[in-house]
């Protein structure tokens, strides 16, 4: 069984993101970049499937500028077999990414596609679902457990009310939640081996996709700073403040 995993290059989760002074975008100058944490969980799940003998090949794909090859190499160091970069310029919307991934799915014919449920930059939570619709594949989102059984996969999903398990017929799409697994760290020998693994580059045209923008970003501004809290002396004062200052009662 072939598994396709999508990874995205995003600002490292440890970095405190700042808006540019002119408000045009997030400031990415000299900022540490990394694999989106949810995507890393997707890579780990695929590698575990391979180690368990369920998957025969793990292909990792990223959509972005040349720099995203760094994140593909990281995924290769973590155990993926081969990489694909779809080269695009600037920001691409979830719908475009989904269309490009559909092109890769048609080329590669994977039985299982694993994606992060969302990326920590845009927080869109759309790409996996859109790919499912475009590729006409079953989907199990927000997975906290994935079990492949013959030509089906059981996905335990984290939903508001608790856990829901769905059984999907392969080929299928899974998006990962935080608790699916804990990603490993790569060893130095594996970092070196990753440099020799195959990495193909496609253009959107190779996949028959036209990159279009449907959204315009108007402004990026930091969230308002929270005011410090105060201590109230009595219940009366609290009620008074809730009524007259906060105006919530």
């Amino acid at each position: 069984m072939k598994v396709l995993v999508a990874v995205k290059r995003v600002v490292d989760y440890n970095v405190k993101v700042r808006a540019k002074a002119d408000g045009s975008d997030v400031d990415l100058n000299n900022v540490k970049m990394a694999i989106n944490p949810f995507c890393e969980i997707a890579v780990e799940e695929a590698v575990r499937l391979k180690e368990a003998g369920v998957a025969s090949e793990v292909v990792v794909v990223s959509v972005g500028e040349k720099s995203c090859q760094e994140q593909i190499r990281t995924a290769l160091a973590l155990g993926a077999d081969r990489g694909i970069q779809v080269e695009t310029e600037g920001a691409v919307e979830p719908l475009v990414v989904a269309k490009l991934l559909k092109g890769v799915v048609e080329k590669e014919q994977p039985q299982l596609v694993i994606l992060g449920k969302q990326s920590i930059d845009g927080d869109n939570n759309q790409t996996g679902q859109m790919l499912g619709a475009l590729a006409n594949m079953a989907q199990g989102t927000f997975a906290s457990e994935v079990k492949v059984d013959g030509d089906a996969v059981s996905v335990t999903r984290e939903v508001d009310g608790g856990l829901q398990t769905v059984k999907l017929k392969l080929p299928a799409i899974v998006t990962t939640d935080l608790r699916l697994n804990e990603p490993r760290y790569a060893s130095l020998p594996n970092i070196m081996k990753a440099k020799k693994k195959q990495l193909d580059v496609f253009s959107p045209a190779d996949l028959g996709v036209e990159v279009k923008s449907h959204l315009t970003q108007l402004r990026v501004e930091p969230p308002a700073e929270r005011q410090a809290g105060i201590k109230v002396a009595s219940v009366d004062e609290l009620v008074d403040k809730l009524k007259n200052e906060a105006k919530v009662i």
Partner: protein
Amino acid sequence: MSLNFDSARLPNPHLTNDHNAWREQLRRFIDTEIMPYADDWDEAGHIPIELWPKAAAVGLLGLGYPEAYGGITEGTDIWFGWIAAEEMARIGVGGINASLMVHGIGLPPVINWGSEAMKQAVAPAVLAGEKHISLGITEPGAGSDVAGISTTAVRDGDHYVVNGSKTFITGGMRANWVSTAVRTGGEGAGGVSMLLIPTDAGGFSRTPLTRKQGWWASDTATLYFDNVRVPVKNLIGEENRGFRVIMTNFNGERMGMAASMEAQARVCLEEAVAWASERKTFGQRLADHQVIRHKIAQMKQKINATQAYLRICYESIASGQPNPGDIAMLKVQASETLEFCAREAMQILGGIGYMRGNRVERIYREVRVNAIGGGSEEIMRDLAARQYGI
């Protein structure tokens, strides 16, 4: 821009994506496998035996050693080693690095001067984290004065009979072998040999040295040799040529210590800046007081100088032309920087810095072992002066 462990590192044009990937994955290993337990291990006075195979698997133990003996050299260079030293220092528990990486001083004599059979018997097991090797030079009566050692190895057929003792031996309690300096000839440097002594040999015994100022997580021992019979084939290099083996070993040790000390100084800076940005006195942040701002700037100034000097020395090693005098002075530069930064960070942290369980307090207690071990500041200056032909 905030001033922290990473942002306080000057740019190094030699670093590539591969180096960054190594730093990232190694940090992840450390943050998962070491950081959460570091303080407890230090208080307990040892690190778990399981850590060695884990460190071997991630590539930490084998880095820089020949692939034929289980090491990792392919695609690597000296900058990978610098990164490893920095990241281990970031833990802020020096005893963990001292103990886990002690093969860094014990194994090179075997790799560089030992017989093929010796290398095969020792190196793969050590680099896999299954067995342990230490370096035995210092004696109760001779430390810095290496040529003055008095532990003897007297030839008897195809064995040496070893008598004497070694002290302050890092990893000595756990070691399966000790690369040991012994006297096989007359007085002075020309009578010193290096001998690989297995610790299961009859007549060998050891006692732990537990009441240390710092490096609690590192085991330290006194070793005793009472008519220990060691096969002649365990000789490392030629008989009576051990002084050269010892001296060539020092460059690597001093570079590693200097890199570690610079990074420890950066830990002090990071902790001091974080506290100064938060703590309020007299109606403003500590960091807003000029006297504190100057302390921080002065720490960074000394750290910058040490980093630049480190890079120069690493470059000279990479080009195959290391200058032992300059490396000796680098070690002094680094220990003086560390001493200054540990002091100033403690002053900024105040009472909270005096409490056990924070990195600055521990580093403060570990300054001296860095300033003395691997060659004291005084010996380093003397060596440099002689090197420069003054």
